[in-house]
């Protein structure tokens, strides 16, 4: 764009306002900003005042021609007059720091012009007269321009610094980006170390995380082959270590910048420091008010870290802290998902027709996936004994046999199990608790972890579920809630099975009873009825043979009436089986007590001596009076 505009004004002070307006319009049209427009107006005003005062030596002695030209870079203002040559570009700079009394009032105008415009030229030719050319660049108000000038002066020196700083800021941005895109903590920490080393060019970079549960600082990532070795070895140092810069930073949560390690009392040549380290910058990774880790940067030269590094690395550390926090959240989210999956799996089994053993196995298997454990078992209460019903373990030597002989609940080794059986909530083993059978069988150290959850249905104790892990402190509130849930699943499964068996039994009995009832109603003779009864009774009580002897009241003798489940020879034997009072103790007892008599072993029980039961192949007998 090239739009010259020219106007001539009389060389009088009252032209100044009009000249000001003229250049203001031109400057606005040139797209200068408000501040630059004002600066152009000031410079032109000063120039015209000088022309009237110095070139013409007073008002009304000649004209001033003002031309404004705009191109893509700048606004150029040209002032022409025909007075005595007066060059404002050569005017000396006034003393701007003098006290009030010594302040000179002249010379300010030329100084303003020099300061406010980007370029200024003065020419005098006999035919053109005096020509003053002033240029204002677009986007160069005074302050910005002075910054630009400063930059020019120190450009060479600063360029590399700025470049480096920009690179480093890019590294911070890259780390932030990585934080947002990498969820695997190990990969992310490696990436942070790699970026810091590449962009900041410090030879040794280490990243450590704090493990508050074990009061340790764990080496997680480091630069170079040495870093890899330390990372694989899983180097740890104590959190409460009194010496060393890294423990100090981890404890206090403050950054430490040391430019000469030989004069730093906290410094200690630790395991991961290279021998020739001279400077160190360690910044804590803080999230909320917890120190999650330490970013440690070391150099083999002195005085390499500036205050700016402290800020940059703090920014980096903040990103890293967020990353670690994210990774933890992601991990625990995954865990929760896994737990939910496990529960779904187990409840799914409950509603299908899986056997009790399958459900118990599945419960342990899912628990094992969700919680740390070396061995897990479900114990069921049988009478006064706890018996292992299902067991799972990492260790190959663990098998059900090891735990079978648990014995009575009162014995000392099981007091912890008894406590769990009677507790309302799962209980966690403390290092003072006695060992449980699992721990003893696995030969764990004394401070191993274990948790035991009672299996209950409606206040009825069914058994317990136990988990054990060789390391201390593995179970907490979360595990407690989870084992409680799984224990109640197991309890429901056990109860379901029991109810199912009970129902089956009841159904069977009802069926048999119905048949007996039907038989007694439709049959007419006593013989037929007795025959049906001896046929049905075995299915009712699950025995092979059944016989009925009828008592003849006058003689008080039992006579054979009906038999089931015997061959023809035995049938003949049975037909001869008459029992008079005093013949058999069992029958006498029956008559006298009118309660059933049980004989568990015909061979040894003296109450039944006759040879007939023997011939009939009876081992156990039960005589009922009807």
């Amino acid at each position: 764009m090239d739009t010259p505009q020219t106007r001539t004004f009389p060389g009088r002070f009252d032209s100044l306002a009009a000249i000001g307006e003229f250049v203001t319009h031109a400057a606005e049209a040139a797209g200068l900003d408000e501040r630059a427009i004002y600066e152009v107006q000031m410079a032109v005003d000063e120039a015209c005042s000088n022309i009237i005062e110095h070139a013409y030596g007073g008002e009304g002695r000649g004209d001033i021609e003002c031309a404004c030209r705009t191109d893509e870079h700048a606004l150029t203002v040209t002032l022409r007059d025909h007075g005595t040559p007066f060059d404002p570009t050569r005017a000396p700079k006034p003393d701007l720091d003098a006290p009030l009394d010594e302040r000179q009032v002249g010379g300010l105008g030329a100084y303003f012009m020099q300061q406010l415009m980007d370029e200024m030229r003065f020419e005098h030719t006999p035919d053109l007269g005096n020509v003053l050319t002033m240029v204002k660049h677009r986007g160069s108000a005074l302050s910005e321009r002075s910054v630009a000038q400063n930059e020019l002066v120190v450009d060479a020196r600063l360029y590399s610094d700025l470049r480096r700083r920009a690179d480093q800021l890019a590294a911070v941005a890259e780390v932030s980006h990585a934080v947002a895109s990498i969820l695997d903590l190990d990969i992310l920490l490696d990436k942070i170390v790699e970026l810091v080393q590449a962009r900041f060019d410090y030879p040794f970079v280490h990243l450590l995380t704090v493990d508050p549960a074990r009061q340790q600082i764990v080496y997680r990532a480091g630069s170079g082959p040495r870093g890899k070795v330390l990372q694989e070895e899983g180097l740890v140092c104590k959190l409460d270590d009194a010496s060393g810069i890294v423990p100090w930073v981890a404890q206090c949560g403050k950054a430490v910048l040391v430019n000469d390690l030989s004069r730093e009392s906290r410094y200690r040549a630790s395991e991961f420091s290279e021998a020739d380290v001279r400077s160190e910058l360690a910044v804590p990774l803080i999230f909320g008010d917890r120190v999650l880790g330490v970013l440690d940067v070391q150099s083999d030269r002195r005085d390499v870290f500036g205050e700016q590094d402290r800020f940059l690395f703090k920014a980096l550390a903040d990103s890293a802290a967020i990353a670690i926090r994210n990774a933890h959240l992601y991990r625990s989210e995954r865990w929760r998902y896994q737990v939910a999956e496990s529960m779904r799996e187990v409840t799914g089994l409950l509603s299908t027709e899986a056997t009790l053993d399958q459900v118990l196995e599945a419960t342990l298997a899912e628990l094992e996936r969700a919680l740390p454990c070396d061995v897990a078992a479900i114990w069921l209460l049988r009478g006064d004994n706890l018996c292992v019903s299902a067991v799972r373990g990492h260790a190959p030597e663990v098998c059900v046999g090891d735990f079978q002989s648990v014995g009575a609940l009162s014995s000392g080794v099981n007091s912890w199990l008894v406590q769990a059986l009677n507790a309302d909530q799962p209980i966690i083993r403390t290092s003072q608790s006695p060992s449980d059978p699992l721990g003893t069988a696995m030969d764990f150290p004394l401070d191993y972890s274990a948790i035991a959850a009672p299996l209950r249905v409606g206040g009825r104790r069914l058994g317990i579920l136990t988990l054990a892990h060789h390391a201390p402190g593995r179970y907490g509130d979360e595990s407690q809630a989870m084992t409680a849930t799984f224990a109640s699943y197991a309890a429901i499964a056990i109860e379901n099975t029991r109810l199912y068996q009970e129902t089956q039994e009841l159904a069977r009995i009802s069926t048999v009873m119905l048949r007996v009832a039907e038989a007694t109603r439709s049959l007419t003779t006593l013989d037929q009825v007795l025959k049906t009864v001896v046929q049905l009774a075995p299915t009712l009580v699950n025995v092979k043979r059944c016989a009925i002897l009828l008592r003849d009241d006058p003689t008080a003798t039992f006579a054979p009436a009906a038999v089931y489940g015997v061959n023809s020879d035995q049938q003949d034997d049975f037909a001869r089986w008459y029992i008079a009072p005093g013949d058999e103790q069992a029958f006498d007892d029956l008559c006298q007590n009118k309660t059933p008599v049980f004989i568990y072993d015909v061979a040894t029980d003296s109450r039944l001596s006759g040879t007939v039961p023997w011939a009939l192949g009876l081992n156990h007998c039960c005589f009922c009076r009807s």
Partner: protein
Amino acid sequence: MQVTTKRLKRCELVKATGRIDSNTAPQLTKALDAINKADCFRIVFDMSEVEFISSAGLRVLINAQKTCKRWNRGELVLASVPQRVHEALDLAGFLPLFKFYDDATEAVGSF
């Protein structure tokens, strides 16, 4: 440019409107001289309506300040100085020589 002056109990309030350049500066000089002639050297210059000031205007201010401050008899203080005018004062190195107030009332209260 228009200049108004107002006598207050403890000082004189001067207000200028428009441009203060080589053309109008003598007018301001005249107004300030008149105040000094009346033996008043405590002056508040309200610049809220000043659109433009050139070195000629600054010259008036520095001369007036010299007169007012002589023998510690008073002072010229500036009130409601617009940003561009403030930048010009800064460029001239005048900031240490004047007291600045956000508004005229505050400036008047300073005396």
